[in-house]
């Protein structure tokens, strides 16, 4: 199946709408732009500048990744003093206080998922740019995985915001967000935008009926 010719939309003069998924016929003319007859959205055979946009958001994510993990994301203050917590520190704290299952969940959401997304999208963007035909089906599955797990990294942002809102007992105990949280939230948003910018159809470069 993988090597045989599969007709794609462009071969048949068809085009699918990204928004409403209607399949329409694209007139064969020089006009560069066509709109979906059902929803009016601009039709593209491929998202414009997909690889460049993906790489730009990935670069943003990589740059912010270090401050996100090195800077503290919150400070707890109590009568006993102040203490800063990083993302990794929070995971270790959960691990040592006995909730190991939750520690594993937070590790996956905060450390593993962002790294997976950055690595996977870099691979997808570069292989798409080289019009690679290497393991196309697996790459398509990898993209779907990235899309599915993407937003779970927001977990630690919610945890800190909730702790700030829950623990406010004046001088006795309080929690403040720190700069690391801003960087961490930005990494999550940047990787989500990178994955939204990538067009999975680029995994399948146009072959044409004659290979």
């Amino acid at each position, binding site marked *: *199946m993988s090597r045989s010719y*599969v*007709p*794609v*939309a*462009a071969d*048949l003069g*068809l*085009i*699918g709408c990204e*928004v*409403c*998924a*209607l*399949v*329409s*016929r*694209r*007139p064969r003319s020089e006009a560069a732009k066509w*709109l979906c*007859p*059902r*929803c*009016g959205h601009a039709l593209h055979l491929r998202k414009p500048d997909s690889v460049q946009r993906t790489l730009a958001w990935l670069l943003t994510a990589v740059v912010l990744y270090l401050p996100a993990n090195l800077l503290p994301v919150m400070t707890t203050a109590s009568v006993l003093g102040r203490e800063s917590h990083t993302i990794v520190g*929070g995971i270790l704290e959960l691990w040592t*206080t006995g*909730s190991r299952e*939750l520690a594993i*969940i*937070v590790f996956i*959401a905060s450390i593993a998922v962002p790294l997976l997304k950055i690595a996977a999208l870099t691979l997808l963007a570069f292989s798409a740019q080289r019009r690679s035909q290497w393991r*196309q089906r697996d790459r*398509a599955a990898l993209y*779907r995985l990235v899309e599915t797990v993407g*937003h779970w990294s*927001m*977990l*630690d*942002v*919610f*945890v800190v*915001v*909730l*702790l*700030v*809102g*829950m*623990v*406010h*007992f004046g001088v*006795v*105990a309080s929690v403040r*967000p720190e700069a690391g*949280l*801003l960087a961490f939230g930005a990494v999550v*948003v940047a990787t989500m935008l990178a994955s939204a910018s990538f067009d*999975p*159809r680029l*995994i399948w470069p146009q072959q044409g*009926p004659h290979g």
Partner: protein
Amino acid sequence: MGMVPLDAESLPAPHGRYMLCEECDAVYPARPIGRDDLLRCRRCGAVLARGHGLPLDGQLALTLGALVVFLIGSLSPIVTLELQGIHSQATLLEATRETWRTGAHVVATLSFLTAFVFPLLVIALRLWVLVPLVMRRPVLFLAPVMRLLRWVLRWSMVEVFMLGVLIAVVRSAGVTHVVLGAGIFAYMGLTVLLTAIHAAGLQALWAQAVPKRRGVRVARPPRPRGRPLWSAARRARGAP
């Protein structure tokens, strides 16, 4: 269940209808989708179409339920904490306001949008489309509403927020005494309802809102910009 893509011999007649794989552009002949069908693309494995057992009025009922649960969840306290006789209650909105007050405006806005505004929009926009459809009336602003709905679905993070509550409770349990409030249970219900509604997809709404036509419609060129409409119309009629 896989589907065999078209080949050169089995191209449908000019008035046949097609299905496209959204992730690799492979073309398939359109076919009716049964209730429990799950059609996958033979080439890339993406889901082509999913039969959904939920009719429109069922979707409307679930969405109205989600609205009620959402309001309970966001207005009632998620947890109550007690420390040395002081009680502290927190709702989602209070938590984001408190975060805003500490100066972390971006983070406060981000969590306010993804845990409150976007889930509310998901529910409100679905109702905007579903209510007229069930009443068999035309939907106003269908295309922009559906486009916004599609965008907002990606950024609504109710289920992540719910897990966040759980972890925040465990982490503060060492310091204080924590009692779960009605809010957390409402959010659990909301997660389930939104997942069920989400499974129905957006395709059924499009299909119901815009009546099907025979054959394949033709893409239209954009309206010329910068020139008033009437002059384009005059030109089309052959006026100077």
